[in-house]
């Protein structure tokens, strides 16, 4: 499971990471009961401050998406909060709009974009 | 001004002044100025040989400057920087070598040829000393001076006569020239990567491997043979160790030792000071009864040595302040830091002064036993009292002037430190007067140190 953050973007790392976790939960890549990497491992992996990761975990726990079991680790909560899926898709649409705009600027046609996305999908499917 | 030689020559004054940075420069000039002042009553060679010591320092300045030029990568990178920077230093040295004997000859009635030979010899050794920081390079001129110290003895006559014979003088000059060229070659090949690249003296300093730090000390304690030896060599420390059963880092004495261990070795200072004062000693020996009839004057070299070495020790501490000051953040109280620092300066000063004095006395005893008796008289007591006052004063003035960061002013501190000594030599003071004067100077010195601490050291820590 690969998370990626762009520290130099205008979006805070906490937001980037929490969106990614939410998206994975919404998309089914993370299922209820799945264990997330420890704060330390996640921070080392992303080369970001552990406080940042901790804050993300805490926030998502407060939202009910994650569950912190004391002395054990952080897990995806048994039941996903209602409405989570819809907001996620909303977010994804926003991201897609941004990508499409960029593609148009680069002169890519709809087919080109679709092809590029299809290429990206394949390895994930396997 | 299109002429490249002229262009190079025109930078000399500027380069001369930039070379004065290490405070050796003003020192040299002031030494030259002070010496005739001192010896205005005594004529002839006394002045000349005293001046030679100043010139030796000047040679040191030139070499130091050359070394800085060689090592200054900025100078190589900046557009318009001189292409042959060493040439400037070379020209400076040549001017000095040609002009100084003439100057001395003009002022005093010394014969030109032997004077030139001696100046060249001293210059070569000073050059080598600054370039390579090898104290061995000072041995030859020192031997020369101490041999000559034997008063009216046949040896001195022979040495003087030898130097005055043209063939020997010329060969001495040739030898010195070769020596200078060798030092110059060392210098020109020096890069920043060279181990001896530190500007002055620092290469002398070696980390004391056996007692390098507390860790090492603890190691020593685990080795019974060495522990016994240490108990013999450093009984106070041994007793403290046994009494407290604590790690070596816990008591003031060992912390002092640790300060010491990171401190610069005193060889560099000692050699430099000996080089300066040896001719003075010779001068004094040659005139035991001066016109003014002041017996203290015969102790002048020793007094100068005392005060100079004190000033140098203090100067080194002040110059290393940036390195030392961050140690205030290591666990320990502020007061402890300053107390330990003060104690270390005091111990270093005492050790350096005593060491140099003993070395000088031993050398004198070996070479010229006749000049020892005046050292053991009541004047000795006066000398020590005055020198102690002068030392505190010199430390204060060194540290105080350093805060101005004006090299020329910093360089002035040494002659100023000698002030009490000059004053002393000008009067036939009694013991209470001497004590009073010394105490007065010490108080001023302490005041200066305090003021420097308040205004400079406190605000510029780290």
């Amino acid at each position: 499971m690969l998370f990626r953050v762009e520290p130099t973007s205008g979006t805070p790392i906490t937001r980037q990471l929490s969106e990614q976790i939410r998206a994975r939960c919404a998309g089914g890549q993370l299922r209820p009961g799945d264990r997330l990497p420890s704060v330390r491992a996640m921070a080392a992996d992303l080369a970001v401050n552990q406080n940042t990761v901790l804050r993300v975990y805490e926030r998502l726990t407060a939202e009910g998406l994650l569950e912190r079991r004391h002395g054990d680790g952080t897990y995806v909560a048994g039941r996903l909060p209602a409405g989570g899926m819809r907001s996620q898709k909303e977010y994804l649409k926003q991201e897609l709009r941004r990508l499409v705009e960029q593609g148009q600027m680069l002169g890519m046609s709809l087919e080109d974009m679709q092809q590029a996305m299809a290429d990206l999908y394949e390895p994930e499917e396997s | 001004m299109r002429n490249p030689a002229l262009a190079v020559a025109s930078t000399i004054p500027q380069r001369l002044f930039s070379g004065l940075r290490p405070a050796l420069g003003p020192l040299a000039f002031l030494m030259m100025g002070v010496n005739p002042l001192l010896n205005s009553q005594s004529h002839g060679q006394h002045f000349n040989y005293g001046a030679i010591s100043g010139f030796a320092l000047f040679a040191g300045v030139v070499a130091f400057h050359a070394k800085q030029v060689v090592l200054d990568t900025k100078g190589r990178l900046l557009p318009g920087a001189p292409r042959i920077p060493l040439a400037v230093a070379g020209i400076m040295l040549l001017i000095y070598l040609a002009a100084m004997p003439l100057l001395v000859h003009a002022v005093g009635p010394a014969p030109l040829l032997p004077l030139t030979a001696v100046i060249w010899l001293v210059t070569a050794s000073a050059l080598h000393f600054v370039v390579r920081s090898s104290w061995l390079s000072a041995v030859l001129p020192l031997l020369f001076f101490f041999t000559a110290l034997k008063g009216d003895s046949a040896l001195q006559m022979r040495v003087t006569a030898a130097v005055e014979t043209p063939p020997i003088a010329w060969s001495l000059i040739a030898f010195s020239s070769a020596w200078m060229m060798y030092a110059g070659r060392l210098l020109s090949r020096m890069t920043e990567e060279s181990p001896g690249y530190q500007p002055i003296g620092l290469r002398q300093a070696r980390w004391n491997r056996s007692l390098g730090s507390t860790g090492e000390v603890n190691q020593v304690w685990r080795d019974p043979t060495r522990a016994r030896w240490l108990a013999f060599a450093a009984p106070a420390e041994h007793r403290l160790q046994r009494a407290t059963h604590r790690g070596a880092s816990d008591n003031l004495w060992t912390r002092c030792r640790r300060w010491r261990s990171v401190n610069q070795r005193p060889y560099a200072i000692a050699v430099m000071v000996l080089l300066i004062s040896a001719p003075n000693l010779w001068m004094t020996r040659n005139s035991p009864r001066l016109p003014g009839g002041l017996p203290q004057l015969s102790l002048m070299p020793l007094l100068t040595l005392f005060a100079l070495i004190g000033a140098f020790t203090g100067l080194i501490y002040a110059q290393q302040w940036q390195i030392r000051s961050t140690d205030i953040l290591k666990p320990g109280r502020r007061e402890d830091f300053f107390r330990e620092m003060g104690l270390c300066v005091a111990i270093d000063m005492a050790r350096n002064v005593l060491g140099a004095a003993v070395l000088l006395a031993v050398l004198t005893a070996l070479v010229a036993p006749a000049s020892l008796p005046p050292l053991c008289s009541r004047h000795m007591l006066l000398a020590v009292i005055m020198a102690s006052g002068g030392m505190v004063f010199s430390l204060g003035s060194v540290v105080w002037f350093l805060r101005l960061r004006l090299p020329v002013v910093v360089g002035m501190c040494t002659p100023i430190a000698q002030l009490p000594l000059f004053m002393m030599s000008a009067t036939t003071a009694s013991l209470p007067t001497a004590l009073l004067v010394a105490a007065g100077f010490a108080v001023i010195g302490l005041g200066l140190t305090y003021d420097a601490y308040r205004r400079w050291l406190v605000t510029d820590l780290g």
Partner: protein
Amino acid sequence: MTDDVIVAAGVEKRFGRTEVLRGVDLTVPRGSVVGLLGTNGAGKTTLIKCMVGLLRVAGGQCRILGDDAWSLSPETKARIGYVPQVISFFPWMRVRDLVRYTASFYPNWNEELCGRLIRDWEIPADQRAGTLSVGQTQKVAIVLAVAHEPDVLILDEPAAALDPLARRQFLQLIIDIAGPGQRTILFSTHLTADLERVADRVAVLKSGQVTWSGLLEDLKEQTHLNLEESFLEMHHA
């Protein structure tokens, strides 16, 4: 109050007639990693020196771990690690001697950590300090500042001279040391990219005053700019 490790309240500092700090207010909560940003000459180094007690403040107060910065107790000093901007060592001391010398001051020196860092960073332990490169010197200074596992680590431009690899290693080290909310780290820098990774709080020093301080994410949420852009924005406004 007890949760603020470093507190600067109305700190003023003058050098002669030049006013460098004009009433700096800054608190660093326990466990945070704070990046101190500022243009050249904004007073970062001066502020940091005031905070560790290398400079005496002209007005206001600096407290660190509850102690007044000017009169830190030995116990507090043992809990502070500091890397100055200009690092100077005795040039004739070898790196291993420097380590031994420094270690002898600290009761809580972690020899294992120190040795590991020296190995990982490929610091030549037998070389004399005077022959080290600027980057190597900086590495040594960092090792010496962290090997006693301080609770508070204060670094003045720590990564300026490090190569990209060493910088990444250094950032990892900072992340490692900081832990989740365990140690407090304050570092000044003008490399905003480093700061964005490692810092969770930012303080911006501008002409002797802290003009903005708070969570980095709050800044980004407010401005939607990255740190460099907001920094430039703050200085153009």
